[in-house]
């Protein structure tokens, strides 16, 4: 054991550089990171770059099939039912899609996780009260809730994010609470209490870092769910309103043309799938890289690659 520990001492390196090295070692995670960074870059500069093209109608090339350069590289992925460039629309839609999904997921993870932490840590009525809220949210059909709320209030981006975030909260609340209940009985928490640590220090320093990897894993899985939820609402006309577009909305709109022009729904669907897949792979990598006990797995695969 002692011998193993001495050899495992890492060479002095800056933290960021070391993490990059670990990322390079895991090729799948590396590709995912590249894909996600590309999507994010397009989400930021896409509308500015291709905003005009994406709204330009050209009825002569309605449902123009993909993989042909006849009308220029913008139409390589085909054109939609009004003859707009699929590629441009996909790039422009990435902004709304990412903004809504990421905000909703981050919102539900932070709020849900925090409520779960509090409810797990406080004995008595507060913990129970929070869990009953989670039960109520879960027992109410989430789409119905969204419909009611968005019907009553203005169907805008902010409300959409709030509704999607709140309906996805219970899963974080329950997971966080269950983990807290287990972790707070561990000896290092007892030791911290014996040192005089405050509740916020115990939650923040000892409990939260241990449940965070679980919550991020759930969050990446939830990302796809939120994208689809958003598209369902947009389809019903109470989410994103055309001419604004998202990938989900594109899938929904392309549904009618599945037999005549499959690419209308296929490409946005493919992007949703690749985003989710990349997020999953990245989250697996992050979980290992952040856990000092597991990090060696990434380091070992590096050695075998050399």
């Amino acid at each position, binding site marked *: *054991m*002692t011998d193993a*520990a001495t*050899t*495992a*001492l890492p060479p002095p390196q800056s933290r960021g550089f070391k993490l990059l090295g670990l990322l390079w070692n895991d090729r799948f995670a590396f590709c995912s990171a590249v894909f996600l960074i590309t999507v994010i870059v397009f989400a930021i500069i896409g509308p500015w770059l291709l905003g005009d093209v994406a709204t330009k109608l050209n009825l002569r090339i309605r449902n123009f099939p993909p993989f042909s350069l006849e009308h220029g590289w913008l139409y390589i992925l085909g054109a939609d039912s009004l003859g707009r460039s699929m590629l441009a629309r996909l790039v422009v839609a990435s902004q709304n899609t990412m903004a809504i999904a990421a905000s909703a997921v981050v919102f539900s993870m932070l709020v849900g996780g925090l409520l779960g932490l509090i409810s797990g840590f406080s004995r008595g009525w507060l913990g129970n009260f929070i869990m009953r809220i989670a039960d109520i949210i879960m027992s109410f059909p989430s789409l119905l809730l969204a419909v009611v709320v968005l019907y009553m209030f203005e169907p805008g981006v902010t409300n959409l994010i709030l509704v999607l975030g709140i309906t996805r909260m219970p899963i974080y609340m329950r997971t966080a609470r269950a983990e807290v209940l287990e972790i707070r009985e*561990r*000896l*290092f928490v*007892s*030791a*911290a*209490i*014996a*040192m*005089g*640590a*405050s509740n916020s*220090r115990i939650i923040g*320093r*000892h409990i939260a*870092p*241990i449940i965070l990897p679980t919550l991020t894993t759930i969050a990446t899985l939830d990302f796809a769910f939120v994208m689809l939820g958003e598209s369902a609402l947009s389809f019903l006309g109470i989410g994103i309103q055309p001419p604004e577009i998202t990938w989900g909305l594109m899938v929904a709109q392309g549904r009618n043309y599945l037999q005549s022009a499959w690419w209308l729904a296929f490409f946005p669907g493919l992007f949703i799938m690749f985003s989710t897949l990349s997020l999953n792979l990245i989250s697996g990598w992050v979980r290992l890289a952040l*856990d*000092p*006990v597991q990090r*060696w797995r990434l*380091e*070992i695969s590096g*050695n*075998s690659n050399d």
Partner: protein
Amino acid sequence: MTDPIAPILQVNNLEVAFRTGTGEFDAVKGISFDLYRGETLAILGESGSGKSVCSSTIMGILDSPPGFIRGGEALLDGVNLFELSDKKRRELMGDKIAMIFQDTLAHLNPVYSIGWQIAECFRVHRGFDRKEAWRRVVEVLERVQIPDAANRAHYYPHQFSGGQRQRIMIAMALALEPEILIADEPTTALDVTVQAQILDLLIELRNESNMGLIMITHDLGVAAEVADRLIVMNHGEIVESGTVHEVFANPAHPYTQRLMAAIPGLGKHREKPSTEGQPAPKPILQVRDLSKHYLEPTGNTVKACDGVSFDLFAGETLGIVGESGSGKTTVSNMLLKLTEPSGGTADYNGSNIFSLEGKALLAWRRKFQVVFQDPFASLNPTMNVFNIISEPWLIHPDILAKQKFRDRVAYLLERVGLVPDHAARFPHELSGGQRQRVAIARALALEPEVIICDEAVSALDVSVQAQIIKLLAELRDKFALSYIFIAHDLPVVRDIADRVIVMKSGKIVEQGTVEQIFDAPKEAYTRELLEANPIPDPETMKHRRARRGMAV
């Protein structure tokens, strides 16, 4: 059954290795031994010595990959086990060789009744019908002395105590009347009195059925009690072997000698500094009538701790001994204010610690620190050693300025026998003993007056245990600490304590100086505890066994 004098199991030049990220690690490096009918062979070694790998390999339950057998053979009645087909091998396992383990809860299936699980052996290996299998189950349970076996066979594992579960494991192992029984640390998780009963049972069963018993243990006392012959393993090699009398009387190898020297409870009692000419010391902590009652859902009140009173003086070590369920940890948790007491007081400097709040509570927490049993669980796995040791100073910012943290951590690490470089490590990169040293350094960081050691050395190997005890004694004298030393292991307490409290079922049975308790115990229960504790001396154990009415 050809030749009664031939060994039933011959292990020749067994080599087992594990593939790891950095290459191959040799766990067992060419060991050989024989096992004869009706004898007990003890394999003694500390953690990492390869003793369990060796037995798993013989049983065919080695984790493979990453483990693999590099060479050697294991001959059972002349047949090499490693060359058999998987199917043949499975038929032999359980039938000819059986094994019992330390952790009974993990090795019994919680969703089947124990009778069903034992009956499974008969169905699989013997093809008995349900009725016949069940009759055998009751028979074998009676053989391991489970009371009311016919009814209790319907019970589930969690409804039995630890000792009874180990009996059930033994019953399961003996169901098919194997020729060899391998017992891997069978009594390590049990109380001493239960341990004595289980060891008696194993010896009795061995004599009855004339089987060979391999006893794998880290406990020299257990080895001395049951073994005929002894193998001492270290780093995958046999460093010494011989009859138990030879090895204990004249250990030849330096490792064995070191191991024997590390045995707790054999030296002199601690010399107390002379108090003559000084005024009678005042206790720093006075505990009166401390109690903790739990209300069970059935309406019964469980008294985990009942009317416990004692004093703690400056610079002394107070041992609290007792078996599991005696309430010793409850006492420590109440003094640490991890659980609320149901009644009683604890006076520290004229104020009752149970009514402290806010600033006063924080100030008191500084004076009272704790070292827990399990160094794997008591350190946060996501923090490195520097953050672990410096955390107390973040909680009590008046102790130390932030820029001095690094020097002070280095100082503390050196005090507990580590080097400043360890500050960058994470807990999983340290060995058990090193982790416990970190936990001690963390407790020292607040410059406390009292440290509660809750089974602080129980999870450690004998030689490491001896080092930690020595360290604790040095620190006590250097920093004028008082210890409340909670343990189930009597010899360890004998080595370090000045006064001892014996607890049973939440009550104090006896308290006195270490000489009074160990040399002239008054209460029957104290005597029983001392008697059940295995002593690493084969002669003494032989006499004891004879007194208990056992044939040896």
